[in-house]
């Protein structure tokens, strides 16, 4: 058999929708996806339940001051804050994995206009993050609050700002997903991408604490992670941005990272 079988229906043109379908398939057919998302889900739900059980069992020995300043949202959303590590690493890998294996050459041969690939990767991963993290964070919230409710130390969904903070925690992770896809496209290597992600989210904030406090309070609120967290916090003081202002700035950072990734993807040789 030497002649190649003729296509029953000839190949059709490349469209953004078809590239999305392709990226959807790619996303789910490597192991790193399932592992990272499993870890993110377990952390998001597991930590709040664990934390609430511990807090609840030690409630009697807490000082009145501790009880008075206790914020029931802290344990509810602690898991989603840790899960950003898994989401961010996966976001970098979604792009850098193609470069490290050489897959990028096949991808860009199929889609030589290139940019639809980046939009599809960010869109697919952002949507999956939302779809998976929305129920996870809701479960974490209601489970933790029901554990804490026996001490009358819980928030109801209708408490002022609670719904915004809980949904905000989900949206924060979606922005992390898009931002790290952008970082992956800029650096094209797993090591460089993850190091940059870790530097922005986990190194920069503590460094601010050793700066003179006037600098710290002038700069810190505008750091990506701090700006993004504004939407998750229940109370805001002069040192934090307003919830949606902060979130908007965070989303802007993600848009800049994605745009930078788009420029690199378009301009550099693959």
């Amino acid at each position, binding site marked *: 058999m030497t002649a*190649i*079988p003729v296509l029953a229906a000839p190949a059709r043109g490349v469209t953004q929708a078809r590239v999305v379908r392709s990226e959807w*398939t790619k996303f789910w057919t490597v192991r790193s996806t399932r592992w990272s998302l499993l870890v993110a889900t377990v952390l998001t739900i597991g930590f709040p339940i664990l934390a609430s059980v511990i807090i609840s069992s030690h409630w009697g020995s807490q000082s009145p001051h501790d009880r008075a300043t206790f914020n029931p949202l802290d344990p509810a959303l602690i898991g989603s804050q840790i899960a950003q590590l898994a989401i961010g690493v996966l976001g970098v890998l979604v792009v850098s994995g193609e470069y490290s*294996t050489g897959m990028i*050459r096949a991808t860009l*041969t199929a889609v030589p*206009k290139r940019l639809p690939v980046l939009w599809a990767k960010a869109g697919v991963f952002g949507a999956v993050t939302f779809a998976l993290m929305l129920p996870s964070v809701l479960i974490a919230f209601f489970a933790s609050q029901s554990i804490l409710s026996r001490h009358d130390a819980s928030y109801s969904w209708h408490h002022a700002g609670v719904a915004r903070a809980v949904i905000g925690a989900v949206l924060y992770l979606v922005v992390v997903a898009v931002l790290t896809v952008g970082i992956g496209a800029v650096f094209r290597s797993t090591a460089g991408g993850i190091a940059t992600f870790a530097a922005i989210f986990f190194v920069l904030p503590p460094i601010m604490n050793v700066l003179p406090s006037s600098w710290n309070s002038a700069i810190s609120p505008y750091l990506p992670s701090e700006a993004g967290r504004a939407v998750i916090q229940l109370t805001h003081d002069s040192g934090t941005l307003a919830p949606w202002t902060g979130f908007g700035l965070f989303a802007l950072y993600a848009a800049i990272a994605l745009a930078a990734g788009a420029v690199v993807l378009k301009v550099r040789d693959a």
Partner: protein
Amino acid sequence: MIAAHLLTKDYGDKRAVDGLTFEVQPGIVTGFLGPNGSGKSTTMRLVLGLDRPTAGEVTVNGKPYAEHDAPLREVGALLEARSVHTGRSARNHLRALAQTHGIARARVQELIDLVGLHDVAGKRAGKFSLGMGQRLGIATALLGDPATVMLDEPVNGLDPEGIQWIRALLRGLAAEGRTVFVSSHLMSEMSMTADHLIVIGRGRLIADTSVRAFVAAASKDLVRVRTPDASALLEAIARLDGSVRVEPDGTFEVAGVGAEEIGRAAAAQGIVLFELTPHEASLEEAFMEITRGELEYSHEEVVA
């Protein structure tokens, strides 16, 4: 059809492709020949738009590759460097690429069967042998039923059976009227499959000619002669103004005199000949002759 016009590519201060102009025609197998490092792979990457030319341009069926609506219908390519995610199965790899062009799932299975990967299509591509990887790459290239098939060193890593299969496949594709452009650094491989040759060295075009003309141009009139009567024959050839090189095994390589003349002279003087063979250069030798000095690293440079 592929058309390159003054195609040039620099990497830093190193010129990988230097003003290449050529056309690759449909219906025949065109061999793309050159030593390792001569710019063949770079040229193919430029055709696909993976790298951007420093100067000049290359088009596929009249347009730059990236401007086609359905690029995989225009060119199917196998690159020398691996282009597969090691963690994804062969089937899912092909499915994902097919989806970019709305190609049906049945087509993926068809190609898996065609290249003989049905037993391993569910395995991760990272576990594939070199030969299996090449077969997957060829399936990828054929996915869009392309008018042009461009393969970079396709026989690398294939077993003899696989090599036979590739040769038949290339000829079959050309017979269907497709443009077939296949690179190799092995002349012997080209002589088995190619009708036409584009030969490059150090990024520059050396020859753009039929295989037959390429060999003829490089052939020198050499005659192999074996005799038990060496001194008498040497004298006879000297009288005919020929030159002789004596091989280690005692065979003469005679230049400047035809086989007929040597035979007559030997008969006239009663010299016994065991062998008298006019010699036509092989494609391999033709290549060495024509690219001499164009090799990326000649022996002198290596020694120096």
